[in-house]
Structures are given as structure tokens and as C-alpha cells.
């Protein structure tokens, strides 16, 4: 029976199957490794950002003990915001290209918390320093955006990037996913009257809500 099987070569059906399973599994494993490498890259950026935020908060605490040097603190905050914004862009790219593992979602949530914490810090700082920079918080749909929402979010991202390029240190740009089931984010959204169905939304200085795409010049008026 076995000899006959080998003689008529039909064993190739099974050997090809075994080889395919082996190579395919190796491919999947390699895929996991690539995605995990990307996640660990994000994780290491996150660790750095977390340390920086902690540093900023401690600085604020120190300044609260004495007279605060607002110019310096604001500069540090804006630098930090810019760096976290760059991290966010990389995180979004990796999230979009992630197919096998969900570990990137966890990293995203951690970043959302960090940026929320930074937002709160920035609100407090504005109250204390009475400065003229603007908090521009971009709350978007991360988990399951419709096609229309995705397109709108792409436009919002470009719009905010151009605003940042134009206004520089006049705006503190903070992007946060609004549908990651994080209690602190949900609470802040409730505080400022933002519903999940409204996402994406641009919130300027915790007062002005922009839900529809507007001309960049119109938005600039809110920031002048």
C-alpha cells in the first residue's frame, strides 16, 4: 500500500500540505515578531514620554512651592506636547498596519491616559499662568470608525498638522482616542458635553467644539 502510494506520487498532496503548514506558520510567527517589535518600539517611546510627563508634573509641584516661572513651564509643556504628537502619529501608523496582534491597542490606551493626564495638567497651567496659548484637543474615533468618519479624521489630522505648523508654540495639540473605554477620558468628555457619537471633534480651550470640517482660516480665527 505504502509502496504503491509512493510509486504513483500521490503522497505529494500530503507532503506539500505539511511543508505549506510549516512555512505558513513560520510566516505567521515572523508577522507576530514584526508587530511585537513595533509594539515594543512604541512601548519604549511611551516609557520616555511617561518619564517626561512625570518630570513636568514634579516641576509644576516645585514651582507651586515658590513663584512660578510660567514662560519656562509653558515652553516645556509645549515641547512635550509636540513630542507626544509625533509619537501619536507613529502609533496611528502602527495601529493601522497591525493585523495579527492586539498588543498595540493596549499601548494606545496607555498613551491616551498619558495624554489625558497632560491635558489636565495643561488646563491647570493655563489657569495659573493666564497665558495666551490654546489647548487644542482632538478627540477621535479609534475602535470602529465608519468610512465617512475615517475620511473626516484624515482631513482633521491634516488640518491640525497645518495649524500646528502655522501657529507653533501658540497651540498645545493633544490627540486622544475617545472610544477606548477609559473612565478618565469619558469623564472629561462628559464634563465638556461631548458625546461619543459626535466624534471626531476638535475642542479649543475647552469651550469651542468643532465637529464638521471647516476652512482652516475659520479655525484660525478661534486661535487669534
Amino acid at each position, binding site marked *: 500500500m505504502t509502496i504503491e502510494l509512493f510509486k*504513483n*506520487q*500521490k503522497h*505529494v*498532496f500530503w*507532503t*506539500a*500540505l505539511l*511543508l*505549506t503548514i510549516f*512555512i*505558513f506558520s513560520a*510566516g505567521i510567527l*515572523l*508577522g507576530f515578531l*514584526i*508587530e511585537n517589535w513595533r509594539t515594543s518600539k512604541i512601548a519604549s517611546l511611551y516609557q520616555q514620554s511617561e518619564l517626561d510627563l512625570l518630570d513636568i508634573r514634579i516641576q509644576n509641584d516645585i514651582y507651586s512651592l515658590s513663584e512660578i516661572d510660567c514662560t519656562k513651564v509653558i515652553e516645556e509643556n509645549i515641547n512635550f506636547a509636540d513630542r507626544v504628537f509625533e509619537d501619536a*502619529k507613529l502609533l496611528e*501608523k*502602527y495601529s*493601522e*498596519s*497591525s*493585523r*495579527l496582534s492586539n498588543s498595540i491597542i493596549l499601548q494606545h490606551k496607555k498613551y491616551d491616559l498619558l495624554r489625558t493626564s497632560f491635558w489636565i495638567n495643561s488646563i491647570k497651567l493655563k489657569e495659573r499662568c493666564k497665558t495666551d496659548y490654546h489647548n487644542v484637543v482632538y478627540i477621535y474615533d479609534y475602535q470602529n470608525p465608519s*468610512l*465617512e468618519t*475615517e*475620511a*473626516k479624521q*484624515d*482631513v482633521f489630522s*491634516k*488640518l491640525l*498638522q*497645518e495649524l500646528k505648523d502655522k501657529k507653533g508654540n501658540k497651540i498645545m495639540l493633544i490627540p486622544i482616542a475617545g472610544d477606548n473605554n477609559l473612565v478618565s477620558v469619558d469623564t472629561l468628555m462628559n464634563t465638556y458635553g461631548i458625546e461619543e457619537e459626535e466624534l471626531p471633534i476638535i475642542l479649543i480651550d475647552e469651550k469651542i467644539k468643532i465637529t464638521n*470640517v*471647516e*476652512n*482652516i*482660516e475659520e479655525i484660525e480665527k478661534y486661535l487669534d
Partner: protein
Amino acid sequence: MFIALYMFFFFIMIYIRNKKTLFNCPKPNKNYTLSVITPAYNEEDSIEGTIKNVLSSSYKIEEMIIVNDCSKDKTKEIVEKFMQKYSNLKLINNNKNLGKAGSLNKGINIASGELVAVIDSDSYPEKDAITKMIGFFNEKKVGAVTSAILVKEKDTFIRKLQSFEYAIIAWTRKLLSYVEGVYATPGPLSIYRRQLLLKIGGFDTKNLTEDIEITWRIVYNGYKAESCPAARVYSIAPKKISEWFKQRMRWNIGGLQCINKYKKFFLEKGMLGFFILPFFTLSLCLGLAGLGVFTYLGVTRIFKNFIFTQQTFVAGTQLITSEDIFVTPTVLNFFGIVLLLLGLFFTLTGLGIIGERKGGFRNIFNVLFYMIVYLALYPFIMFVSILKLSKYKIQGKKMGWMTK
């Protein structure tokens, strides 16, 4: 992806194991008498060349029977002219149009040879092609033998692409023969045992690809089909895209008719049920699924880009920035690239083996075009064929030759 990878390893493993015997041609252990049957319908442009080629074969042709299926051109006159020169050339004129299968059956019934070779009226076998094929009939189980069908003139781009396709088919058909998986014995040149054809009822007149159907029936009856790539026949391939599309529709509709006819033997009846039927059906399903996914992704991308562009104008921002150029590839993208490279290797290997890799790597653009664009059209043609078949079924129409 898994199935594509499996098929790659499947063919490559058979090839590695058998590469020394691909072009082996057994010597005949007896003199088989052979009749050639050529059905013809409006073939005035090519019939002369076919007659000359066939009758100059190195194998003794007992008779060449041209079955003229009510041609409206000068096919009949041309054949009659050659009958004066060749005593073994015979002409049968059908009283009414019988179609290709019907014409072949008429020829089989009057043929006298032990073996019958079916040769299309636009095909030109090499001088020794038939001689090389005959020896396969030494094995009693062999009911049919087919050849390597190649494109005769590669004067247009579409014909060049078809020449790749034909060569790959010739190579893979030979590989399939090692596992008794030959699923078609095409019309340009295939030889059958005449008694077997008579026993199983001849060609199916209701099927548009009688050459596929007869092979399945031969396998169903416990025989096998062999492939002889050393025997080469050159066939005139469609010159225009519209002709090519029509021909492919005919192949697809015929394939669907075969699946429908033999579906009850799925995973039964030896290689027919365990390999040929699943292989055919899977190719069809995967192609259609691929077309569905591709269409969905394409439509959603267009829709998204439309909204994006529209809103970008409202926002007054840049449509494209330097950041958009750098994309982060997904794991699936990597898999796709690996499959493309494997496919390229497979295609170039096949073309090299069959001797169609002329121009070396200068031809690489054509090969890539063949792989990425030409093959991607298959599922679309299949989809149109299903629609057409359904329409004809609903209206109860007869499909005819679908070649002219």
C-alpha cells in the same frame, strides 16, 4: 494565501521529483492505426495550413476527416481542392449545424483508426508531435493523451501574454499527469482511444468545453489522461481582447457546466472526485472570493478618497503631504510580496522549461504584467460567465460554438 502557497509547493515538489522525465516519450510497442478528426466552422483562413501540417506528420495518418459544420465561407472548397492531392483526406458536410462536439462525434463514428486525434482547424502540430504521443497508449489505462499547446504568432501584446499562459498550462498539465490529475485534453491536439470514446458516448454536445468534459468522463470511467509536452502544437490565439474575452467566457461556462454535471461525485470516484473536481471548484470559489474582496476594498477606498478629497477642499488643506508617501506595510503586504516573488519564480521556471522564455529577462515586464494584470482578470471573466450562463438558462437558449 495558504492555498496559493500550497499549490506552489505542490507543483514544485512534483517538478523536482520528475524533472528528468518531463519530456520522456515512450516508444510505441505496436503500430496503432490513427485517424485525425478536424471539425471546421468558417475556417478558410487557417484550414489549409492545418491540413498541410497534419498530413506531413512523421506518423502514418490513415485518414484525416474534416467535418464541415455548415461553414458559410470557402472552407469546403479549400478542403475539396486538397482532397485531389491527398487521398487520405476526407470531407463530411453536415446538413445542419451540429456544433463542435456534434461534428467530432460524427467524425468518430466514421473513423477507422484504433486511435483518433482531434486537431482544431486553426492548429498546427509539429511534424513529430503525433509520433511522440502514441507510445503513451502502451499503458492500457491511458484513454487520452494531450500535447503542449503553444501560441503560433506572438505579434500582439495580448498574444504574448497568452503565450505565457499556454506555456504554464503545458508545464503544469504535465506535472498534474504524475498524480493522474490531467483535467483537460484540449482541441488543438489530443489523441483518444476510439473504442473508449464510442463506449462512453462520445463528446457531450451540450457542453461548451467538450475537451474538459470528455477528460472528466474518461477519468470517471477508470482511465487516465496523459500529457506529452515534447509534442508541440501551435494554435492561433485570439488577436483582439474582445475575441480573447469571448474565448475565456466559453472556457469558463464549459467549466461550470462540467462542475454542475459531475458535482455528485465530489470526494468520490478516484481522482475525479478527490482532486480534479475540488481543484476546479476551489479555483472558481477562490477567484470569485478574491474578486469580491478586491471589489469591496476598491469601492470603499474610492468612496473614502472621494469624501476625503471633497472635505480637503472645504478645509483648504493640502491633499497630499510628504508623510503620505511613507506607508507602514502590514504583515499581509509582506506575505503578498513573498507570494508575488514565488509566483514570478514559478512562471519564469515554467516558461524556461517549455522554451517560451525568449528574450531572457528583457521580457520581465511582460511576465509581471501577465502575473499582476492578466491573471487578475480571470475572476472577472468568471463572474461575467456565471451571469451569462444564468441568463441563457433562464431564457432556455442554446449557446452554439461561441468561437465565431
